[in-house]
């Protein structure tokens, strides 16, 4: 992705933003960075998960699976995956925090301008409520995807057959709960806040 928010922010006059606009713009940048971080973790996790499946498969070829204790190698890979998932939990926690900030901004505006909120948009066209709704949709996807990752972490090494292992792996890789539109929503958010040139 060319021209991340960091360098876009540096050469824009809007660095003088204050108050709600500043907060919303920073939030958008944080969303972008958290999603990048998530993608990186997802890739890292996928490699580990694939190792787990391969290790299991080669063990199954050697002896009956259920009687033998898990090998050190398998154990090590599983704790690596656990690490990755923990980091993903941290990412989603930060996202939840962003949602709270968003809600705070919304409440503040209701207090300042009454229940209708601000009448003039802070940036191009979105109302503060639009920001909240948009981020809410992102949040729903990541929350659900994280739940899926947690199940995969629990079950991957216990998958009873190779088909199920394959389904776990492809769930991990293709992230069924992060919809394609979600990426577009992030782009919309970055466009609206001026991180990307219109």
């Amino acid at each position, binding site marked *: 992705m060319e021209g991340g928010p960091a360098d876009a922010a540096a050469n824009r006059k809007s660095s003088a933003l204050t108050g709600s606009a500043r907060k919303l713009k920073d939030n958008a940048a944080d969303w972008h960075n958290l999603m990048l971080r998530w993608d990186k973790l997802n890739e890292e996790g996928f490699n580990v998960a694939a190792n787990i499946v391969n290790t299991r498969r080669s063990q199954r070829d050697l002896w009956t699976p259920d009687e033998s204790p898990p090998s050190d190698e398998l154990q090590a890979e599983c704790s690596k995956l656990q690490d990755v998932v923990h980091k993903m939990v941290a990412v989603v926690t930060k996202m939840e925090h962003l949602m709270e900030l968003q809600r705070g901004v919304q409440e503040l505006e209701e207090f300042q301008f009454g229940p209708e909120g601000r009448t003039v948009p802070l940036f191009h066209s979105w109302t503060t409520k639009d920001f909240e709704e948009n981020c809410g949709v992102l949040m729903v996807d990541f929350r659900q995807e994280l739940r*899926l990752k947690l*199940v995969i972490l629990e079950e991957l090494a216990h998958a009873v057959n190779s088909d199920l292992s*394959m*389904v776990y792996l492809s769930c991990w890789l*293709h992230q*069924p709960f992060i919809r394609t539109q979600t990426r577009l929503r992030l782009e919309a958010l970055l466009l609206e806040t001026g991180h990307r040139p219109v």
Partner: protein
Amino acid sequence: MSTPAVSCLREALRRSFVTLEKQRSVWRSVLAECSPLMDSLGNLAEQMSALSRVQLSDTPLRVFPELRERLRFKLLQAADSVLENMSCKMTGLQAVRDAISNQVSAILQLYEQNSDALDLLAVTERSATVPSVADMLEWLQDAERFYRQQFLQRKALLQTLRLDDLPLLESAPRRWKSLESPSSDQRIRDTLCKLSFFMESQ
């Protein structure tokens, strides 16, 4: 002694082989980019059939509503993008085929235009470094036929693929690989080798 018609034809042949050599390397590099794409297509097909064989309600994944549909959608989307990529590569292969075909038909036309001036002796005359015109025309046509057939076979393979026919999709990388024809390619390489002195001569 070679007549003007023969030397003119030889010069055209020389240029054609230079083109052939260049296009052959383009072809090989495009083809090299295709195999990982075909592999990932086969891989996606495997994932789709694994998904269709697993009864999700019997697994810990049962807590996720719509998981099957959503994962299937993502897999189809990924397969779609691989196929799109492949069709770009096919455009590349087609360009190679066209370049070679155009060369060959131009040279045959040139030959026919001059055929009155070219008797049997002239077209079979050869030296240590310059093969006969007849041989060179044959080699060029062999090469052209090879690329034409290769392109058609590969194109046909891709056109029969359907995203809902998983066994066909799963076997695609293997069938793609089986279209390789190392002996024909080797023959073209040998020909170019034999012609290296001729191609360098001006």
